[in-house]
C-alpha cells in the first residue's frame, strides 16, 4: 500500500497524497494481515493432484499420546483412528512447523533488536531493488517500508504457525492431503519469516544488498590465525557477532583478535565485516571446537551442537549463550556488570553465562578472549593431539564406527591402515566426515575418533584455505530485467539453488555439481552451508569456483546469496521474474504467481545434505511456489516426497482455455536422489518447463542428454516426453533420440501458449 504511494510520488504525480496515506492506514488498522489460508488450500489441493505424496515411514509407531504406543505398520489404524500414511503427513507438518517457528522466532529476535536500536528504521531499498519483500507482498498484499511494518506480519505468521501446530495435535486434522496443505503453508510461512529476517538484518547492519561484486571472505580451518585471541561464534543470529566486531572496532583492535564463525552466523558476520572468517559449515563444528583453537565460544541460536557446553567445559573454554532459546542451563547474567561476569567466568564459577544483551556480549567476549589468550598454553593442545594419536592402537576393529556413520565412511578400514602407520585414509575420512560424532559414541574403546580424523588431517587442515564471496543478499530488479526473458524462454537453461546443510556422503559433491552447471551457463545460487561447501574446492590453478565464476545473476554466475535466511531471495527472484518480466501483480496473488513459476520458470533447488526441520520447511515452502527440490539420499528420511507421473500431463492452456497434453515438467516437486550420478541429469531435467521455446527446449534437452550420458551412461529413455517437435531434438544425439522416439510411438504435439494448472 505504502509503496504504491511512493511509486506515485516518484512519478511526480501529486495527487491527494494525504488522503491516500490516511486511507491506507485506516485499512491497515481495520484489517488484520492475513494469508487467506482457505484460498491457498485450494492451490495445494490442485498442486497435489499433479504431485502425489509418497511416504517412507522412518518409524511405524506412534507414541504421541497415552493410548499408544500404537503400531501403525501396514497402514493399520492407531487408538485415535490415524493410519500410517496420515501419521507421516502429520509428522512432516510437525517438522515444518518446527522449522518455520525457528526462522520466525529468529526474525522476531532481530525485529526486537531493530526496534530497540531504532524503532523508525527504514528498510533498505535501492534504485535497483523496488520489490524488497516479494514473498510477503505476494502472500499478504503488504509492502513493508519500515521495520515496524514487519511486526504485524510476524504476528500473522506466529498466529498461523500456532494454528498449524494445533492441527498436529491428536484428534485434529484427519486427511493426508490436508496435512500436506498445512505443511506447505508452514513452508510458506517459513519463507516469509526468512525474508523478514533478512530484510531486518540487511537494513539494521547495512549488509550487502544485491551487490554482484561483493567482497571475498576467507573460509576454512586453515584460515584461522591461532596466534591471535580467537572468538568463535556458532549459530545463525548475527546480533552477538556484530556486537563483538563493533566492540573491537571501538577499541581499535579489530586486527588483533580473530573473529570467526560456524554455520550461518559465519556468513552473516562476514557480510558485516571483511575481517571476519568462516571456519566452515555445520560438519566442522565438533572438529573445530575439539581443536581447542577458540578462546571464547559465543552461541546464538540454531545448529548449535547440543553438547557444546560439556565439550567446551572439558577444554576450559567459556561459553556465552545469547538467546533465550538456547540457554544451556547457564545463569542469566544479563543484568550483571561486565567486570563481574568476566571475573565469574575466569574463576570458573560458571562454565559460561547467558547474556541476553548483544552489546554486553560484545564487550565480555572480547575482554575474555584477550585475557584467556594470555593465559593459555599451547603445549597442552599438542600433547592432547599426541594422546589422541596414541589411541589408534586401542581399536578392536569391531566395526561399530562404520555401522553408525551416516556418511557410511570406511572408518574401520582407515583405522586398520592407521595402525600400520598410514594416516592418509583417516585424513580422507576428515574430508568427508559430517561431524556427527556417532562413531565416538559407539566406539567400544571410547576412541575420540572425530578428533583423530582432525589430528590425522593436520597438514591438510593447515592448507584448508579457501575463498567464498560474501553473502550478497537479494537479486536485483535490474538483473531480473536482463535475464527474465532468457530464463522464461529457456535460453538460460536454468537457475539452480544449492541450499541446506551438508549431511551427505561425499565431501566434494557440491562443488562438482555446481561447476557442472556453471560451465553450461546455468545460473547457480547458493545459501548457508551449501554456499560454504561449494567453496571447499580448488581447481588445478588453485582457484575456488567463486574466484572462477562471476557473481551476477546472469548466465554462468555463482552467487552466494547469504545465510539460510537468504533462501528467501532465491524464491524472491522467481517471484520477481513473474512480476517484473511477466508483469504479474503480486499483491495477494499467490496462486497466479506460483502457477507462473511452476510452469514457466526453469528453476530447481538442490538440498543435497538437508539435515534439520528447517530444511524440511524451506524445501516444502519452495514446493508451494512450484519450485522443485532434489534431496540427497538422506533426504528420504524426511518421510514424504511429492512425485509426478512420468507420462504426458494434462494441463490448461489459458490462452485457449483448453486442456492439453504436455510434458511432465517439472516431473517431481520433491525427490530424493540415490547418488550424485542420478541427481545431476535430474537437475537438468527439472529445469524444463512447458513454456520453453523450441530453442530453449533444445538447449535444455541437450544438457539433459549430455549429463545423462556422462553420469548414467545412456540417453534418457523418457526423452520422448519432452520433445514436442523435431526441431527440439539435439543434433548431437539425433540418431539415438530418434530411435527412442520411434520405439515410444512419439508424435509431435503443440506447445501450450500459457501453461497453467489453475
Amino acid at each position: 500500500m505504502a509503496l504504491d504511494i511512493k511509486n506515485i510520488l516518484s512519478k511526480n504525480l501529486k495527487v491527494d497524497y494525504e488522503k491516500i496515506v490516511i486511507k491506507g492506514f485506516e485499512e491497515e488498522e481495520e484489517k488484520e494481515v492475513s494469508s487467506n489460508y482457505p484460498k491457498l488450500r485450494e492451490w495445494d489441493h490442485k498442486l497435489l493432484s499433479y504431485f502425489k505424496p509418497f511416504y517412507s515411514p522412518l518409524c511405524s509407531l506412534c507414541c504421541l499420546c497415552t493410548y499408544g504406543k500404537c503400531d501403525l505398520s501396514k497402514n493399520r489404524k492407531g487408538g485415535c483412528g490415524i493410519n500410517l500414511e496420515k501419521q507421516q503427513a502429520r509428522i512432516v507438518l510437525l517438522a515444518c512447523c518446527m522449522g518455520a517457528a525457528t526462522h520466525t522466532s529468529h526474525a522476531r529476535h532481530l525485529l526486537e533488536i531493530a526496534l530497540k536500536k531504532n524503532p523508525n528504521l527504514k528498510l533498505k531499498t535501492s534504485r535497483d531493488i523496488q520489490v524488497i519483500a516479494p514473498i510477503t507482498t505476494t502472500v499478504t498484499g503488504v509492502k513493508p517500508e519500515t521495520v515496524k511494518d514487519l511486526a504485524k506480519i510476524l504476528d500473522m505468521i506466529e498466529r498461523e504457525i500456532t494454528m498449524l501446530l494445533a492441527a498436529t495435535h491428536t484428534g485434529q486434522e484427519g486427511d493426508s492431503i490436508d496435512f500436506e496443505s498445512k505443511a506447505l503453508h508452514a513452508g510458506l510461512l517459513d519463507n516469509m519469516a526468512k525474508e523478514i529476517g533478512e530484510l531486518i538484518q540487511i537494513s539494521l547492519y547495512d549488509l550487502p544488498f544485491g551487490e554482484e561484486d561483493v567482497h571475498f571472505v576467507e573460509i576454512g580451518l586453515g584460515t584461522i590465525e591461532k596466534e591471535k585471541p580467537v572468538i568463535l561464534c556458532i549459530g545463525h543470529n548475527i546480533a552477538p557477532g556484530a556486537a563483538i566486531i563493533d566492540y573491537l572496532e571501538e577499541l581499535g583492535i579489530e586486527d588483533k583478535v580473530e573473529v570467526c564463525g560456524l554455520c550461518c552466523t559465519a556468513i552473516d558476520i562476514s557480510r558485516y565485516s571483511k575481517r571476519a572468517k568462516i571456519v566452515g559449515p555445520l560438519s566442522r563444528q565438533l572438529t573445530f571446537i575439539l581443536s581447542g583453537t577458540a578462546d571464547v565460544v559465543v552461541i546464538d541460536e540454531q545448529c548449535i551442537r547440543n553438547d557444546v557446553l560439556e565439550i567446551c567445559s572439558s577444554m576450559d573454554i567459556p561459553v556465552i549463550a545469547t538467546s533465550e532459546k538456547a540457554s544451556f542451563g547457564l545463569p542469566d547474567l544479563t543484568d550483571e556488570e561486565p567486570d563481574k561476569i568476566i571475573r565469574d567466568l575466569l574463576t570458573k564459577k560458571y562454565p559460561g553465562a547467558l547474556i541476553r544483551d548483544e552489546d554486553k556480549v560484545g564487550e565480555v567476549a572480547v575482554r575474555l578472549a584477550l585475557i584467556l589468550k594470555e593465559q593459555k598454553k599451547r603445549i597442552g593442545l599438542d600433547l592432547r593431539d599426541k594422546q589422541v594419536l596414541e589411541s589408534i592402537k586401542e581399536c578392536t576393529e569391531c566395526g561399530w564406527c562404520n555401522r553408525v556413520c551416516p556418511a557410511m565412511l570406511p572408518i574401520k578400514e582407515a583405522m586398520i591402515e592407521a595402525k600400520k602407520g598410514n594416516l592418509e585414509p583417516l585424513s580422507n575420512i576428515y574430508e568427508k566426515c559430517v561431524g556427527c560424532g556417532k562413531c565416538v559414541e559407539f566406539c567400544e574403546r571410547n576412541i575420540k575418533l572425530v578428533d583423530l580424523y582432525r589430528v590425522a588431517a593436520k597438514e591438510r587442515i593447515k592448507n584448508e584455505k579457501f575463498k567464498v564471496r560474501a553473502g550478497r543478499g537479494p537479486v536485483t530488479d535490474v538483473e531480473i530485467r536482463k535475464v527474465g526473458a532468457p530464463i522464461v524462454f529457456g535460453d538460460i537453461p536454468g537457475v539452480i539453488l544449492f541450499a541446506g546443510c551438508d549431511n551427505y556422503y561425499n565431501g566434494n559433491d557440491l562443488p562438482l555439481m555446481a561447476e557442472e552447471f556453471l560451465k553450461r551457463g546455468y545460473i547457480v545460487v547458493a545459501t548457508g552451508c551449501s554456499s560454504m561447501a561449494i567453496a571447499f574446492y580448488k581447481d588445478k590453478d588453485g582457484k575456488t569456483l567463486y574466484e572462477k565464476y562471476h557473481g551476477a545473476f546472469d548466465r554462468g554466475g555463482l552467487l552466494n546469496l547469504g545465510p539460510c535466511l537468504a533462501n528467501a531471495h532465491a524464491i524472491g527472484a522467481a517471484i520477481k521474474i513473474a512480476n517484473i518480466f511477466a508483469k504479474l501483480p503480486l499483491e495477494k496473488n499467490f496462486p497466479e504467481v506460483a502457477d507462473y513459476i511452476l510452469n514457466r520458470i526453469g528453476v530447481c533447488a538442490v538440498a543435497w545434505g538437508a539435515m534439520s526441520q528447517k530444511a524440511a520447511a524451506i524445501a516444502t515452502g519452495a514446493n508451494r511456489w512450484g519450485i522443485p527440490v532434489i534431496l540427497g539420499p538422506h533426504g528420504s528420511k524426511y518421510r514424504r516426497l511429492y512425485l509426478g507421473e512420468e507420462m504426458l500431463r494434462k494441463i490448461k492452456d489459458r490462452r485457449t482455455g483448453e486442456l492439453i497434453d504436455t510434458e511432465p515438467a517439472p516431473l517431481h516437486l520433491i525427490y530424493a536422489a540415490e547418488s550424485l550420478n542420478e541427481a545431476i541429469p535430474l537437475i537438468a531435467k527439472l529445469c524444463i518447463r512447458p513454456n520453453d521455446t523450441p530453442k530453449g527446449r533444445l538447449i535444455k534437452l541437450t544438457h539433459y542428454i549430455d549429463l545423462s550420458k556422462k553420469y548414467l551412461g545412456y540417453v534418457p529413455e523418457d526423452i520422448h516426453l519432452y520433445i514436442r517437435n523435431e526441431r527440439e531434438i539435439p543434433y548431437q544425439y539425433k540418431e539415438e533420440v530418434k530411435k527412442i522416439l520411434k520405439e515410444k510411438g512419439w508424435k509431435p504435439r503443440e506447445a501450450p501458449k500459457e501453461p497453467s494448472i489453475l
Partner: protein
Amino acid sequence: MWNPAYVTPEIANIASPKIVAMAVKKAKRPMFVLGSLLNSLPEEITMEILEVAKLLKNKYNVTIVSTGGSYLTLSKYLEPDAKIGIIDLINNLRNPYWEGFDGKGNYDLILFVGVPYYIATQGLSTLKHFAPHLRTITLCKFMHPNADYSFPNLSNEDWLSYLRNLKSLI
C-alpha cells in the same frame, strides 16, 4: 508378536543364499535391482553380483533394473531391462496396478543390492507398509530390517562367499 512396549514391529528374516534361491525359483515375476554402489564396491564383489544377475536373468527371466548410475558398471557385462531412479521405481512398485516395464503387470519379488543403505531402507519401508502385494529381499552387506528377507551384516569376505554360494544355488 507385536508388543505394545516395543519400539519395533516385525523386522526382516535373515536370508541365507538358499532361501534367496528358493524364493526366486518360486516367484512368478521377480526383479533384481542393482544400485549405484556397484560403481564403487570392491571389484571382486561387483563381479560376483554381476554374475548373479546374469544367471538370474538367464535362468529365471528375472527383470534386471539399474538405478542411480549403476549402468556405468553394469552395462559392461549385461544390458539391464530397465534404468530408473530408485524412488521412481519404488513408487511404481508400490502401485498394485503398475503395468511393469514390459506391460505385463507388477512384480512379486524384488531383490536389491547396492543401493546406499539409508535411502534403501526408506524405500523398503515404503514397500513394507504400502505394498502388501510383493516381497523384498536384500543381498547387501548390511542387514535391512525393513525388507522381508535380508542377508545379515557381513564382512566383505563373508559377503563374497554368500554371493558365491547364491550363484552356485541358482
